[in-house]
């Protein structure tokens, strides 16, 4: 939460200058777009006559009505309590979004037909690849983070080379390198393990930095207290430092994981049957590209929202020793 001042100021959307400038902006925006041929034109027929004949007057009237509605909406939302404001804004944006997708003339039955496969095969593979990669990435990250914080030159060297290399290369490149490069060394692995390996190594490199900064954020006094009680390095790390670093580590890690969920789509280039691959292979031959892509997009979104909620829960759990 931002720190709110205790002095109440007038709601922004109720300030005349703000509403006026928004009004002007919206009016200008819609004047540049000719909406006379759309539903809006039809709705305005009683006022402007035949929409297609109305010319500038019609355009202006439409833009004016839209601007008035928009500003009215803003002002009304401004009266609601916080939670109502949030819900209304979400719903309105969703409606706009659906309206936008409607323009594509999507075939809903086609989506319904393929949804089961998309979920049972695609979502499953995507989640499974991401989850295993996250697990490996965390393990790599912990070791590499400790190595980067250590005074051992050898360990530091390896760890910093690792993070530099894997953060420096595009993920797509790494996936190809693992899948096509390792066989050159005589190591042939399947597409799924290759994908997991590449993802783990790449995400692990980013997470190394998250873990490193998390561990480094712990006050020196904690180490000293722990050491002075006779706890060794492992115990101090496991029971004192990492538990305290977790609240610092979890938000960016959750962020990483949500990002990775979608980066896992890059594994589709190896022919792994995850969400993106399926969406494309089902959509392509039947010319239902858009349907499948949008369906997949919405599924990704829903998954991300779920992860966001899980992340929120974990954060609240770890916040308990901070509350007064």
């Amino acid at each position: 939460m931002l720190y709110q001042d205790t002095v109440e100021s007038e709601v922004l959307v109720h300030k005349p200058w703000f509403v006026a400038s928004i009004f002007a902006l919206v009016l200008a925006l819609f004047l540049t777009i000719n909406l006379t041929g759309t539903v809006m034109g039809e709705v305005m027929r009683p006022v402007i006559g035949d929409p297609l004949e109305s010319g500038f007057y019609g355009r202006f009237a439409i833009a004016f009505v839209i601007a008035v509605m928009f500003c009215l909406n803003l002002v009304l939302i401004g009266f609601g309590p916080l939670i109502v404001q949030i819900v209304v804004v979400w719903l309105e944006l969703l409606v706009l979004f659906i309206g936008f997708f409607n323009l594509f003339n999507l075939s809903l039955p086609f989506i319904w037909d393929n949804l089961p496969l998309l979920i049972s095969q695609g979502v499953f593979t995507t989640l499974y690849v991401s989850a295993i990669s996250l697990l490996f990435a965390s393990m790599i990250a912990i070791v590499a983070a400790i190595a980067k914080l250590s005074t051992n030159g050898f360990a530091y060297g390896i760890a910093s080379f690792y993070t530099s290399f894997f953060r420096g290369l595009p993920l797509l490149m790494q996936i190809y390198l693992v899948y096509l490069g390792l066989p050159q060394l005589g190591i042939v692995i399947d597409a799924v393990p290759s994908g997991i390996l590449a993802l783990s190594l790449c995400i692990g490199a980013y997470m190394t930095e998250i873990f490193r900064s998390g561990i480094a954020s712990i006050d020196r006094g904690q180490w000293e207290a722990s050491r002075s009680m006779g706890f060794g390095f492992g115990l101090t790390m496991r029971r004192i430092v990492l538990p305290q670093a977790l609240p610092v580590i979890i938000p960016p890690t959750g962020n990483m994981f949500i990002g990775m969920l979608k980066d896992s789509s890059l594994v589709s280039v190896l022919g792994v049957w995850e969400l993106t691959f399926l969406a494309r292979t089902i959509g392509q031959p039947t010319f239902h590209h858009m349907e499948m892509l949008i369906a997949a997009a919405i599924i990704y979104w829903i998954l991300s929202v779920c992860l966001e909620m899980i992340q929120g829960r974990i954060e609240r759990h770890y916040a308990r020793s901070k509350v007064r």
Partner: protein
Amino acid sequence: MTASKIHQLKNVPSQREPTDAADMLHLQPTSFQGPSGKKQVTMTSDKIIEATHVSKWYGTFRALTDVNLTVRKGERIVICGPSGSGKSTLIRCFNRLEAHQEGEITVNGIRLHNKMRNVTEVRKNVGMVFQHFNLFPHMTVLMNCMAGPMWIKDVPEAEAKKTALQFLERVRIPEQANKYPVQLSGGQQQRVAIARSLCMEPAVMLFDEPTSALDPEMVSEVLETMTSLARDGMTMVCVTHEMGFARAVADRVIFMDAGRIVEEAAPKDFFTKPQHDRTKLFLGQILQH
């Protein structure tokens, strides 16, 4: 024990029968024998900390120069001196939070050196209380106290809990056991920190300015706890500028300046007839308020 009684002690290292750590926490008849001769000093089992000719450098900066200090069982020693004189550095060398480069430090019969394997053994026997408490904020007060015995002394949970509650009782905050450290006042946190160290049943307690981060009205509750510890015979080395505490409790007061021990005397002599100009100046500065 009353303050006047302590004043009779002068510069006499107290000579007591070694008892095990648990005993020391209970009231012990403090029988002080007469002036001890050099021959008694050689009894090694009696010395909890022995530092001889200790020097320490931070890089090229010499933080300690030829420090000699012996702490015997049951002794209470107060170290004072201007900021930056090396007080913290010295007591942090005693549990090897810092490494010394020259001289010898022996704690509870174990010599501290670079390649030692049993530093944990030393730390189990040396409790430390920090200026900023350094409680573990992610654990409850009770868990802070139970962690040490459970994790490195393999004490069963039930027993650790019993001991922890006992010591929380002793520092008079048993009712806070299930709170988190942030929910406590500074004075309470510091008393929990003391209880946490006591749970390890250490042979000696080190205090590094335990009251200097506290609001004035909380200083006394912590000092009272420390005084009662001293009364029960705990061996203590306290870095503090609480001269009232030093006068009432200390067997010896040590004055440090620029990494050296400048003066070492019984509180009575230390405050009434300091020998060195540096000590006089320092005492003048802190007592005039």
